């Protein structure tokens, strides 16, 4: 079983890195031929970077748009953030001080995450407008995250797994040394689903995480009269036509 999970995680990790790498390279490579920031927009590039940072950290536009959804989204994403940060302890020795510091937040992070996800799911089912735009895949994604969260919470609060062994297994993986993984069905389920999440990440709407940094309506500065903005293909077209 340990070997099976070792292989699974190597495959999942490779897929995640290669897939995301490809997508990010594609976004970076694709030109934005015209200045299209949604105005009023910051006049400088650093101002635009700050605008993107606000979108990423506090979901600024979502706040403008829908307060209940904003609360659900913040609950889920901040919970997720705390949970993931807390998980870093499985992959480092010694553990960073901030990671050690947030360890007591475990249950709260997990609760916020799963609670947020449940609220998002309910909303998706109950509001006819949202149900209309939902494909089965959207529920599957929510279900997957809820199941990961629930299995994790179960380990934290009820079944308790041998986290020292889990850590040894993952530290070993990072040195290509396969150690024994505790034989715990809840842990197996948790890890199998996490691997699945890693594999689907670069092929799904989860691309919103890297994608938001490349959104031209948010990351462009408003200076089209001051600086000529010309992409390669437009320059080529210009050279051909003149």
């Amino acid at each position, binding site marked *: 079983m340990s070997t099976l999970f070792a292989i699974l995680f190597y495959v999942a990790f490779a897929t995640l890195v290669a897939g995301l790498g490809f*997508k990010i390279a*594609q*976004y970076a490579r*694709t*030109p*934005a*031929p*015209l*200045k*299209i920031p*949604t*105005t*009023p*927009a*910051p*006049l400088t590039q650093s101002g635009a970077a700050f605008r993107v940072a606000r*979108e990423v950290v506090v*979901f600024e*536009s*979502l706040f*403008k*748009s*829908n307060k209940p*959804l904003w609360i659900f*989204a913040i609950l889920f994403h901040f919970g997720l953030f705390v949970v993931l940060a807390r998980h870093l302890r499985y992959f480092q020795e010694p553990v960073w001080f901030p990671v050690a510091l947030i360890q007591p937040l475990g249950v709260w992070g997990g609760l916020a995450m799963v609670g947020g996800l449940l609220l998002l799911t309910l909303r998706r089912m109950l*509001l*006819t*407008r*949202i149900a*209309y*735009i*939902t*494909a*089965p*895949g*959207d529920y*599957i994604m929510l279900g997957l995250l809820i199941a990961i969260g629930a299995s994790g919470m179960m380990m934290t609060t009820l079944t308790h797994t041998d986290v020292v062994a889990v850590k040894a297994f993952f530290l070993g993986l990072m040195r290509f040394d396969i150690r024994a993984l505790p034989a715990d069905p809840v842990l197996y389920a948790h890890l199998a689903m996490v691997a699945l999440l890693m594999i*689907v990440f670069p*092929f*799904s*709407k989860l*691309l*919103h995480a890297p*994608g*938001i940094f*490349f*959104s*031209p*309506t*948010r990351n462009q500065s*408003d200076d*089209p*009269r*001051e600086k*000529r*903005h*010309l992409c390669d293909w*437009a320059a080529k*077209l*210009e050279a051909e036509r003149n």
Partner: protein
Amino acid sequence: MADIQIPVLGDPDQREIPSLIPGAMAGSKPYVAQPPHQEPLGFPGELVPDWQEKALGRMGDLLSKYRSLQVYMDICVKCGACTDKCHYFLGTGDPKNMPVARQDLFRSVYRRYFTPAGKMLGAVGLGGLIGAKEFTKDLLDEWFNYFHQCSQCRRCSVFCPYGIDTAEVSMAAREIMDSIGYGQKYCNEIIGKVHKIGNNLGLPGPALIDNLEGLEEDMKDETGQDVRFPIDEEGAEVLLVTPSADFFAEPHVLGLIGYAKVFHGAGISWTLSTKATEAGNFGMFIGNYEQMRKIAMRIREAAIELKVKRIVFGECGHAWRVAYSFLTTLVGPWDFLDPRYPVPQHILEVTNGLIKKGGIKLDKSGNDKMVLTVHDSCNVARASRMGDFPGGQFVIPREVIKSCVPKFVDMHPDTTHEKTFCCGGGGGLLTDELMDIRVKGAKPRMEALKDVVDNQGVTHMASMCAICKAQFTKVLPYYGYDREMVVSVHQLVSNAIILGNND
């Protein structure tokens, strides 16, 4: 036309969201372009037999050329934050007019043919799991209908947590449809007129010159002054580029008179050009970079030929987007113009600057008894700027209006500034066969207008866009208002300006 169901107006404060009426606007579509409209632009005359393959090819091409499209196709999480933001949805209840559902018409094809998951699941008939769809003729017809029920106003983009701009998607969709011979008559016929005759309305040079001479005579009678409407005058300081509707439609022409009086009052020499008798650029509506560039090029050529020092644009929303945001990219740089002025400038920037400096004098009694509100045009509000600070596009028009009228009132804050609603006729929808969607799409704006009319005694609504003006003059009567309720901003300036005794 009589069978249009006029929406009932509510209270803008309630932000009422309609319940879904699937298929409500499924029958609304513009006329398909015929070969004489398509071919002059280099598009196939009619739907090509291998349209699916061609369309997918063009889609791949656009995905590699426009980061916006590529990123937006991938990252929508279906959160639904945009679903209640589109005026066409609010006016019709048709779920396909929710921005995300409109995008999904495109995204379902993208998923099926351009993503690994969609190719795999689609091949075994399970594309529906992730919203991937076969590109059938029925779907193409839906594209034609619903991508012509989007005025590319970008209101959805303001509210989307990632800034996903449905306008970018509908531009791409229209570009793809043009490339397979399935274009929209209204836009393509107009672009043809620009290339052949010089402007959207197909107004030939001599008729225009005649018209301008008439205006000069009228001015002489009215004001006793030699307010001029110069055209093709080499060596003028300013080249004025303005939408062709300004040459004769009401209330547009009253705005043109305003520009002329401002230049006259301030002693700035200016000229129109028979080469650039149109500020509008429908190349943007059809998402075609080359057409947009070709149309913009006339302005550069006119400026060089007439040896002007500055370029100033008249009141028009989408024209100002192309001018402010794209002109320098498309046909810059402007090293032959006076570097002390931004290129191009908006007439409202010019007028506001003059008011501030005392270069023109105004008397509010010229607009006696009028209570004004202003309609922020979507392309001015969300796709461009005026002045040298973010949000100048809201401040400058208001400052100009306030200095011309006795009383000014803003409409509900959910319907102004960056949250402004489209007039309902933008983005290439200003055509009679789309009257139904135009009337319904105007609902949120009419609601906010009714609110200030009923509660604050507003008598007129100022607009700074040729399309908004044309749309409102048509649509206001459906809601029981006088068509003359909509006025040009420079019409107010024209009424208030004091000529003659300035010095």
